[in-house]
């Protein structure tokens, strides 16, 4: 009987953890929910892999932000200045 209960709990958490994986990685779960994720992931290769791969994805996404060259600001500014110069001179 304890074996069956353990199995049912495992299956229940196996459905629950993937739905909460992003919240877990973003630090948005309560402490008891975090423990539930971690406890299940210790025993479940599939969920452990899900967490690992999502974490890797998030880390790579964060690196994209710093890749942007400075390319359009001057052109955007010039266009804005041109358009605003056509407006009446009473400010915004």
């Amino acid at each position, binding site marked *: 009987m304890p074996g069956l209960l353990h199995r049912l709990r495992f299956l229940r958490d196996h459905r629950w953890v993937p*739905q909460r*994986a*992003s*919240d877990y990685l*973003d630090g*948005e779960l309560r402490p008891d929910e975090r423990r539930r994720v971690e406890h299940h992931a210790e025993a479940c290769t599939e969920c452990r892999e899900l967490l690992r*791969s*999502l974490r*890797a*994805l*998030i*880390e*790579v*996404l*964060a*690196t*994209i*932000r710093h*890749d*942007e*060259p*400075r*390319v*359009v*600001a*001057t*052109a*955007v*500014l010039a*266009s*804005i*200045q041109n*358009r*605003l110069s056509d407006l009446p001179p009473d*400010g*915004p």
Partner: protein
Amino acid sequence: VTDPPSNRELSEDSLVQRAAGGDMAAFEELVMRHADRLFASLRRFGLDDAEAQEVAQETFLRAWRSLPRFERRSRFFTWLYRIGFNEAQRRLARRPAAAMAVSADERSVEELADERPGPVEQAEVKELRKALERALGELPDDLRAPVVLRDIEGFSTSEAASILSLGEPAFKSRLHRGRMALRGLLTPWIASTDL
């Protein structure tokens, strides 16, 4: 007597306050600080270069006109982004159906896997980023936007949800679905990249 600080030395709050009072030079400094980041984000929302530049210009013009009413309950860039995102959404909605992004589950994982890089780690990460940008482009708009805002732009959950005019639970749900879709598209990469 010390000279007053140039606009480049002023804090964002000071610039916003001056610009709201009609100081065009202060506003121009805000444009120079934020235009490239806004442009890059608009590109990731699915606009092409020309559209993104037009929307960036329109966003700043609207911001200039609305600044006197900006209540500063959020960061300037968050507010600016909300204006830009709304305009980008309008542009995307006007596109013909054929030009819309396809659903992530219609994509071939092999399409990305075929382009897996060689063994040099740095090149591999660079290629992974390229694959990631392509995969992002294939996500439906409603799943791409949360990923762009939260994971690339680094907005907090509450800020990003606010920009998209979503409640936090709905935002989190879309963010997770977007990440899962990307993970599905990039499985060969993520499995082979030791990050």
